[in-house]
């Protein structure tokens, strides 16, 4: 990513490869910084996004380097957040849906009376307990017999 520090402009510029970090990830990461920085995102050459991050307060060179490091960590966090969100989409819908439904003024009352063991939409295996490990985690290698 090779950040460029422009101390005189109180700014650091980072080019991000969209193949590694999709654009919505870059936008989400940039957004986290808007309380302390002014951010400008531009299209750069060859599938890259250029993020120009300018401190609202005067920053030293070291602080600008730290800012670039923080931005890179934030990209990683936002990427993982999206990956986990996609992977657990169905599970989240079940849990959130179940919890919200139970809190509803009337329908919730019925759900609250039911024993969880008898009211099992949550237990239609949203955690994927019944799915074999390799199927669940996409390991395409053949398993060995034996255990």
């Amino acid at each position: 990513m090779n950040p460029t520090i422009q101390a005189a402009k109180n700014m650091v510029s980072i080019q991000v490869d969209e193949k590694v970090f999709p654009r919505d990830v870059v936008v989400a990461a940039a957004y986290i910084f808007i309380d302390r920085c002014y951010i400008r995102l531009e299209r750069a050459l060859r599938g890259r996004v250029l993020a120009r991050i300018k401190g609202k307060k005067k920053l030293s060179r070291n602080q600008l380097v730290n800012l670039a490091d923080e931005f890179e960590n934030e990209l990683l966090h936002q990427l993982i957040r999206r990956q986990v969100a996609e992977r657990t989409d169905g599970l989240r819908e079940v849990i959130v849906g179940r919890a919200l439904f139970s809190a509803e003024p009337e329908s919730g009352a019925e759900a609250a009376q039911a024993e969880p063991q008898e009211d099992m939409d949550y237990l239609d295996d949203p955690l994927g307990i019944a799915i074999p490990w390799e199927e669940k985690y996409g390991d395409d290698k053949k398993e060995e017999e034996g255990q």
Partner: protein
Amino acid sequence: MKKPIPEVHNQRLMPFRWRELDGRVLLTGDAGDYAWLERETFGDFLAGTLSKEHPAYADLERHNLIRGPHIEKKVMDRVGARSHHLFSGPNLHILILTLRCNQACVYCHASRKPKTSKGFDMDLETAARVLDVIFESPSPDLTIEFQGGEPALNFDVLRFIVEEGYRRNQGGERNLYFSLVSNLSTLNQEQIDFLVDNGVMVCTSIDGPADLHDRNRRFSKKSSYKEAIKKIRAFERTYKRRGLDKELAYVNALATVSRSALKKPREVVDAYVRMGHKVIHLRPLNPFGMGLKIWAREGYTAQEFVDFYLEALDYIIELNKQGEEIMEKLASLMLVRILTDEDSNYMDLRSPCGAGLGQLAYNYDGRVYTCDEGRMVGAMGDDLFCIGDVHQNGYADIIRHPGVRSMCVASCVECLPGCNECAYAPYCGVCPVYNYIMEGDLVARSPVNDRCRIQKGILDHLFRRLAEPGMEDLLRRWTESKDRSSVYRRIVP
């Protein structure tokens, strides 16, 4: 150099998460089962080469980490039982009766107002509207908790809510409980009688021995410690006069760990033993609603708290071995998640957390928040966690506020980065309000999140200790809490 963990070639694995601890591997299952493996054995387990004759194999089978007949169904049923909170609406309703307080604690949050201030008490009209909303909640259990400021400074409204609450629940459709979180100092005997006769649970703060408590909780020229102890004794006498079982009827206390307590873990525990208390709840300071200046003066790092906590915990375990009956509450809540399938519905250790769906907090002026911590953020001028106002909204509006859904999504441990693969996910909970205050985002960056560090530090230690011979029996006793509901009922018509 350590051998890398091999790839998975074993179709008989149940879903599990794992963590390396002290050179061994801890495996945990979705229903909270756990087992330890040596690193080598773990490799064999993953590779599908662990022999059935190996002692670890039977252990893994016993802990539902290897597929077998009926195991999947059994685990699914237990996951359901552990998630009972998903099947009830908000049961904890926190009412801020006033922002006024007669004490000035060093770590107090920004919303506190001096005792003589005007315009910061809940009035009767607001209280009645709050009750309307509470009784619209579908939860069969309703706990109304009075907080502040010092809630006892607005005792007339407290009295109204208790009496009116019982009146509205005359048919006994709900399991209705009341609790008061108070420094106790303003309560007179008539008020104590009212609280005891109406089954109001009482909780106070004792931060440790007198010097530490008085330093933290400033009370003009008086000793806040002596005042609290005097009133605890008055409650004990009153419980006794009413013939209530002293094992069940007592004043709960919790210790907020301030910076000055960090070097005194044993002294804090000893203070509770001297008081004759059987439960101590060691609570880290939290940054909600606390000005940055106060945090800089009173706050500390996660590691400092963990060091304090572990020394206190080990000391409490030592006392248990010597026959003293005392347990630490946070550890006991985690142990319930580890050793049983009960859902204690503790708001901060469930997934999703209690915000909105397990609890609602009502400010003195009628504004409603996802939880009291969200209300404290509101006191700092940021109403992100405000989800309604009892003067304008009914229960349905409040519960359907988009903020409730956001908090729910942001606290599903199973679906969060870092947490979803963490071995402690079946026992843990996250706090979106904390994350928002510390990181400006409802979702934590768990590797740098101090709350996560504290949970991990405590859970690491609990698992280490549980692995010691005989320790599980001792710690299991901490999960067997007595049902106190019988004494927290109205005992006058």
